[in-house]
Every structure is written in structure tokens, then in C-alpha cells.
């Protein structure tokens, strides 16, 4: 059961990572292209600014799910040594539950946001607002899934020992 979930998490992680990377490269490329077009050819495209902004939110929400999957969120570990180990486990479980709650709200509200604005179009790209906003529920959903897999893993296998502070694992 856990193995299947972990396998799924890996596949979802791979997809999220690949998409986020391609989008990020695209953002860098179109913004650079815009400079070249304007400076060399005296010509500007109307949409790169807006496209880059919305794609970046997709990048954030997708890559954000990887931060959860690979346990890369920064925490203040300073006082962790002072905690008895049993209590630390309980604390981590509590945090995972709280986080799941937060992500649940974000998922639900994100869907609401995307559908509420679905028949409104954006200024430059003239696409439905559904697509930019969709990043929020998709990202929150992925995060929630990875969160639950981690929680289940902790429950079944016990939490992994992290000797190093999170800042080392974290991407900051």
C-alpha cells in the first residue's frame, strides 16, 4: 500500500518537476527574447509579461509540491535537541495534520477561485482566468497528497532521523 503510494508520489513528482523546469526555461527565454526584439528589432510582443507571471505561479505551486515531497521546508530546528524524541514525533504528526488542513482549505478555495473567474478573460493573453488560477488547487492538491504520503510513512515506518538542520536540505 505505502509502496504504491510512494511510487505514485515519485511519478507525480517527476511530472511536476519536468513541467516546472520547462516553464521556468520558457519564462527566461521569452523575457530575454523580449529584450532582443525591442532593442534590436524595435518590436515588442504584448503577451510575454503576462504569460511569464502566470507561468511562474504554476512553477511555484508545482515546485512547492516537490519541497513537501522531499521534506525541504525550512524550520527553526534550534530547539529540537531539547525535545524528548517521543514528543517530537507527536509534534511532527500534529504539524502534518495542521498543514493538511491548511492545504485542504487552499485546494478547496483554489477550485472556487478558478471556477468563479472561469468566464473572465485576462488582459493580454485573452485566455480564461481559469488557467492561471488553476495553479493554486493543482499545487495545493499535489502538496496535500505528498503530505499524506509522508504522514503515512511516519506512521508505519517511524519518522526518519534527520541529523542535519533543515536549512541544509532546504532550498532557499
Amino acid at each position: 500500500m505505502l509502496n504504491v503510494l510512494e511510487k505514485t508520489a515519485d511519478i507525480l513528482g517527476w511530472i511536476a518537476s519536468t513541467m516546472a523546469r520547462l516553464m521556468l526555461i520558457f519564462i527566461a527565454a521569452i523575457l530575454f527574447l523580449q529584450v532582443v526584439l525591442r532593442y534590436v528589432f524595435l518590436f515588442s510582443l504584448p503577451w510575454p509579461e503576462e504569460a511569464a507571471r502566470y507561468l511562474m505561479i504554476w512553477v511555484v505551486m508545482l515546485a512547492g509540491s516537490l519541497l513537501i515531497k522531499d521534506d525541504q521546508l525550512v524550520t527553526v530546528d534550534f530547539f529540537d535537541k531539547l525535545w524528548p524524541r517521543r514528543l517530537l514525533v507527536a509534534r511532527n504528526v500534529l504539524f502534518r495534520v495542521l498543514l493538511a488542513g491548511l492545504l485542504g482549505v487552499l485546494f478547496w478555495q483554489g477550485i472556487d477561485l478558478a471556477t468563479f473567474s472561469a468566464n473572465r478573460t485576462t488582459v493580454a493573453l485573452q485566455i480564461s482566468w481559469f488557467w492561471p488560477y488553476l495553479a493554486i488547487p493543482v499545487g495545493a492538491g499535489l502538496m496535500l497528497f505528498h503530505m499524506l504520503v509522508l504522514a503515512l510513512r511516519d506512521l508505519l515506518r517511524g519518522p526518519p532521523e534527520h541529523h542535519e538542520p533543515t536549512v541544509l536540505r532546504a532550498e532557499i
Partner: protein
Amino acid sequence: VGAVLSPVSSHDARAQEIVKFATVDCEGDIVDCPYYAYTEIFNQVLEAGTSGRYTLQVFPNSQLGDLESLTEQTARGIIQMTAGQNAGQLAGYYPSIQIVEMPYTFPSLEVGRAVMQGEFGQDLSDAVAEASGIRIISWLPSAFRSFANNVRPIKTPKDMEGLKIRVQPVPIHLAMVEALGASATPIAWGELYNALQTGVVDGQENAPYVILLGHLEEVQKFYTLDNHLLNMPLVFINEEFYQGLSEEDREVFDRAARLATYSMLGIIAAKETQDLKKIADAGVEIYSPTPEEFQQFVEATREPVRKVLEEKVDAEWFDKLDAAIKNAQAEIGGTN
């Protein structure tokens, strides 16, 4: 006007219903903060007319978000009112509203005001409210936008050739600038001053008070009063909230909006000549095109822009607007 102003009350009376009113502009100065006069008058009429059952609470300085966000917050009823919006913000909900952004449409400010405060404005407001959940409670046709640049004086569209002009990435604006032979360049407002100063772009198009707001007169050399667009800030109210008011209260809101609009437009009109003088004093050469030159701008842009607009705007609005302008002109008497 100053004597009738009193600070917006913030005391909490239990039975009092708070109307949240958010802007991206400042508060506290009647000349520099465009919506200060509006909110003061609105609140006074509102409190007096409802015996204090309703009061306005103002959130200035983008505290609650930028224009885009405030529009959505109003649509969802998180706040009740917002000011300083433009028709473009609503185009996503109701594309036909873009008709008011058709360049070289209003022959004069007076005609623009008469049209928007008359039946045409009311009809458009109703249509928007139905589509978006946002009602335009005030149209504030305040000043014309014109082209400014750093390269040469613009007298006819020919002079615009090859200039890089900053525009908002709105299809009509793009079509207009390109029809005039310039290169339409999207630059964020926050980067515009530096972009003009360093030459990333050569020019931009804004109303005098907006130019002063961004201190753009410091980094521009030529300003041609071609009056291509009538800047029309809007005040929105959440439609559900508005329709939920008792008929009496709704009338008070309407009256408050009318009086607030009236006072605010008065201040803006008084400021306009001063604004142009300030811009000239900063060393900007100001040029008013002759009627023949003006006609060249109209000719150059009419077809391309109309083509863009016809894809988005229902045909009936073109006729309604034409008729409304003719009526207003007849009433006011002549152009300009």
C-alpha cells in the same frame, strides 16, 4: 468645498453597517489624493441620508490590493466599493465595455461627461452589473490621454513612426499605437519612469494628472494634446450588496455617488489647466494639433481599431454610443 469636509467616522456603533471602500490612492489631501473628496462627500451624504445606519470605511494606498485584486474583491463582495478602476478591468467580465476606450470618440470632455452620466452610461452600467456582479456607480470622465515622448514633437501620425511607445497590453491600445506607426511596448507602471529616463522606451500616453502622478514630466520632452482617449476612472459597488439595499437606501447611495462625482470632477477640472502648466514648467514642449492634423490621427486609427473592437463589442453599443454623442452635442452645442 473644504468647509463641508469632516473626517470619515470610524467609531463603532453596533447597528451601523460598514461599507468597505478600497483604493490604490492616498487619503487625506483633497488635491493630491483623487478619491479623498469623493469618499468624504459620499460618506457625509450616506451617513446623513441613512441616519448613520451606513458608514464608509476607506482603505487607501493599495492596502487591500492592486486594481485587479480590488475588482475581484468587489465582485465577490469581500469589499463593497472600490475606486480608481478603469473600463479595461471589466473587459474580462463584459467585453462590450471596451467601447468607451475607442480612441478619438468623444469630441470634448463635456460631451464625454454628458454621455456617461446620461442614459448610455446607465445602460452600460446595468449590462456590466448583470455580467460581472459589479455595478459602476460613478463614471468619472476626467481628462484626455495624449502622447508624450523624448524624440521629436508629434504633429501628425507620420511623426510617430519608429517611436517606442509604452502602452498597457490592452488590444485596443496596441492596435491604436501600431496604426499610428509606432512600436507598442508593454512596460510595467512601476518601471516606466526609469524606462523613459534610460531610453528603454521613447514615450507613453497618459492624461496630464497621471503624468504628474508618476513624475513623468521630468523624463519627457514633448507632449502632443491629441486627446485620443478619455480617461475614465470608475467607482464600483458590489451588485448583490446594492440590490440588497432597501429602495430608500439605494436612492441615498445613488445620491451620494452623484454628489461625490460632481465634487470630484469639479476639483479635477480646476486642476487640469494647472497640471498642464506644471508639465510645461518642467520643460516639456506642449503642442495642440490643428483640426486638420487631428483629423489625420482619426483617419489613421479608425479602421484598425474598429476592427479589433468589433470582435469584442456587441454591434448595438456602437449605434447607442453614436446616438448618445450626437444628442449630447446637440444639447451642449457644438464641439469644444
